[in-house]
């Protein structure tokens, strides 16, 4: 096995299985959806069709564009699971009534910092070492934050004495990953392990067969080999998180503030000295530094962005050579995610025509919204982006609780939601006076010049409906059908 791994790790680039590449317009479409959240314009598609070399200009411009941050927030949410619809502390606890907006502000706090670091010239290390968070107007109004002026998400610093450790000091992260009197922050450390060094604690091969630790769990975590397998690393890190320890559940003042006087409780409660995988640390700031210095931190960043870009789990063996190349570029680029994304979007894996992953609901909503002007809302809640009122999970999205990975196969509920969204989008577009040009629309939606056989089915729909419906209704129905073309709703 060792020899096999070494062989894979040193495999040259061209040993990877050859992947059929997307045609330049289709690749432009993929880049535009990923980096801007919308379809390329007809003019952009025409330009790339006429001269494929301009695709690189678009790619580099969009990688540096202002829309990338929002897209990264949405994609990173598929891994960080913080864009949940409900927290223990609710909008009403602060006298607020916009429950959707409140949940998004809270849940996006860590994601915004991740995305801001990723789109800046800063090292990815900043996500665990930054001396600030980001906050919008809502968070600045409810939490102890000194926020820089400006609209939307600006740099903000907590004023309650919490140390500097990037996302590790964000309320949004720890409101999502809560703990309790018996768990004592271990769940939070497991989240840090998963998110920042790509280690699943629960995947460790531990057997409790023949063991009875029920008599004294507190002792067992220190001296039973099966327990120690995990607790020897979990507990020392958990000891550094007690500034976020709350003693009154569901209390806004307790959960909204850091508690420096509780920092030292961890070592007492857990009976360990604070450490990160054997390296002694003194508090949360040290934890951030230790995570950034962990040899798994860089590779984990590469893996994270590779999976989000390629829209599939990485294959530890099959992708090893590519990941090694990407890591080299990432490290050579001082761990700037811009460098990594530039490299990733140039990989054969990204440009492959062999995978047609379903577009996530947020991307469908934004891309179709840009195309038709339609926003599907109820009580000001965007229905493709939440679940108590909306349809995010039914449409194949990630809510971070019940659904933790994007739907990768067609499904009944997704089909029904897309049908509804397509019909409403199309009707709205026609109500606004849009004109249906089937060839042009096919080009815009799918980024392939249509053959007659591609468009004829839609022309038949239009003609057959035109006899019984009004012209607008017939065109809306045809547009709705084309919006749901399998090639239009995939990546």
């Amino acid at each position: 096995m060792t020899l096999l791994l070494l062989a894979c790790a040193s495999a040259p680039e061209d040993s990877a299985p050859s992947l059929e590449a997307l045609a330049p317009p289709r690749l432009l479409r993929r880049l535009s959806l990923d980096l801007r959240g919308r379809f390329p314009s007809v003019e952009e598609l025409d330009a790339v069709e006429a001269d494929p070399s301009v695709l690189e200009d678009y790619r580099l411009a969009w990688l540096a564009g202002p829309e990338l941050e929002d897209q990264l927030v949405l994609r990173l949410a598929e891994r960080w699971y913080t864009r949940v619809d409900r927290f223990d502390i609710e909008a009403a606890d602060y006298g607020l009534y916009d429950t959707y907006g409140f949940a998004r502000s809270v849940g996006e706090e860590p994601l915004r910092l991740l995305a801001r670091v990723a789109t800046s010239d800063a090292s990815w290390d900043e996500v665990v070492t930054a001396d600030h968070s980001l906050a919008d107007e809502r968070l600045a109004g409810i939490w102890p934050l000194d926020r820089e002026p400006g609209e939307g998400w600006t740099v903000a610093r907590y004023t309650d004495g919490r140390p500097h450790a990037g996302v590790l000091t964000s309320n949004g992260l720890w409101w999502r990953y809560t703990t309790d009197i018996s768990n004592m922050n271990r769940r939070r450390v497991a989240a840090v392990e998963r998110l920042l060094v790509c280690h699943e604690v629960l995947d460790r091969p531990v057997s409790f067969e023949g063991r009875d630790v029920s008599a004294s769990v507190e002792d067992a975590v220190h001296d039973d080999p099966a327990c120690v397998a995990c607790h020897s690393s979990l507990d020392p890190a958990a000891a550094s998180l007690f500034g976020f320890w709350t003693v009154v559940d569901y209390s806004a003042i307790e959960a909204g503030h850091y508690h420096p006087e509780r920092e030292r409780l961890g070592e007492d409660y857990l009976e360990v000295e604070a450490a990160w995988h054997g390296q002694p640390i003194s508090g949360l700031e040290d934890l951030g530094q230790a995570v950034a210095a962990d040899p798994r931190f860089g590779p984990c960043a590469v893996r994270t962005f590779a999976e989000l870009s390629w829209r599939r789990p990485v294959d530890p063996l099959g992708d090893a050579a590519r990941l090694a190349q990407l890591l080299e570029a990432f490290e050579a680029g001082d761990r700037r995610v811009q460098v990594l994304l530039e490299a990733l979007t140039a990989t054969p894996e990204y440009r492959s025509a062999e995978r047609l992953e379903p577009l996530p609901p947020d991307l469908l909503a934004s891309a179709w919204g840009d195309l038709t002007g339609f926003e599907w809302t109820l009580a000001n809640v965007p229905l493709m982006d939440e679940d108590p009122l909306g349809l995010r999970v039914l449409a194949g999205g990630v809510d971070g609780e019940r659904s933790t990975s994007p739907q990768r196969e067609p499904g009944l509920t997704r089909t029904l939601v897309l049908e509804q969204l397509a019909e409403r989008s199309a009707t709205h577009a026609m109500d606004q006076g849009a004109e249906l040009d089937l060839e042009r629309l096919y080009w815009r939606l799918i980024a392939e010049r249509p053959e007659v056989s591609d468009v004829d089915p839609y022309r038949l729909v239009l003609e057959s409906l035109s006899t019984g419906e009004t012209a607008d209704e017939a065109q809306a129905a045809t547009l709705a059908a084309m919006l749901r073309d399998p090639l239009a709703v995939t990546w």
Partner: protein
Amino acid sequence: MHAAYLDRMGRGDGSCPDDPRNLTDTHVNGCTGADGTFYMGVAEFIDQPGLRSLTGDALFRDPDGAELELGAGIVLSWTDTLQELVMMGSVRDEARGGWLKAGSSFILRGQASGGVIQASGGVGLGEEALDLRELTVAGGCVDGGLALRGPDLRWYEVELTCGCGPLSFEGRALGESCPDLSALTSALDVAFGPLPELP
């Protein structure tokens, strides 16, 4: 804190809140009294021989906008020979000055008996925080462990014997120290002194 709470509750109009001492779950989503004071949450105040306690998760907003926020349990109990105090949670009262206005959180237990006060736990006042380890005040002397969170957000520890002792930082000795403990001992004297009159 008990007085600040009862002051707000005393402004009620009989229906909001519907009890002069306890904020019942009727008001979990909030209500506004006749004088404009807003009440939200749940809280319970008990005052009986041997026990005075306030526990709750509640927000009060005065007509001028000043807020009292409570997410805590503050329990005083006593017998003829022993007083005990448990403070857990966070409080903030914008209508008051000092540490209450900025907000404070604590996780503290203490007891007093026969002129000896002993306390363990932490008190946080903004960035500043104290951690007491079986700190004992008796006969004018302070003994036991005391840790202070410095401006660098790290902890400095001193093991006191009658007010003085070796100071250390992350295991490194920094010499002998005799910190000014007057504010701390005054606070403990107040906490374990005569019960204040209630409004």
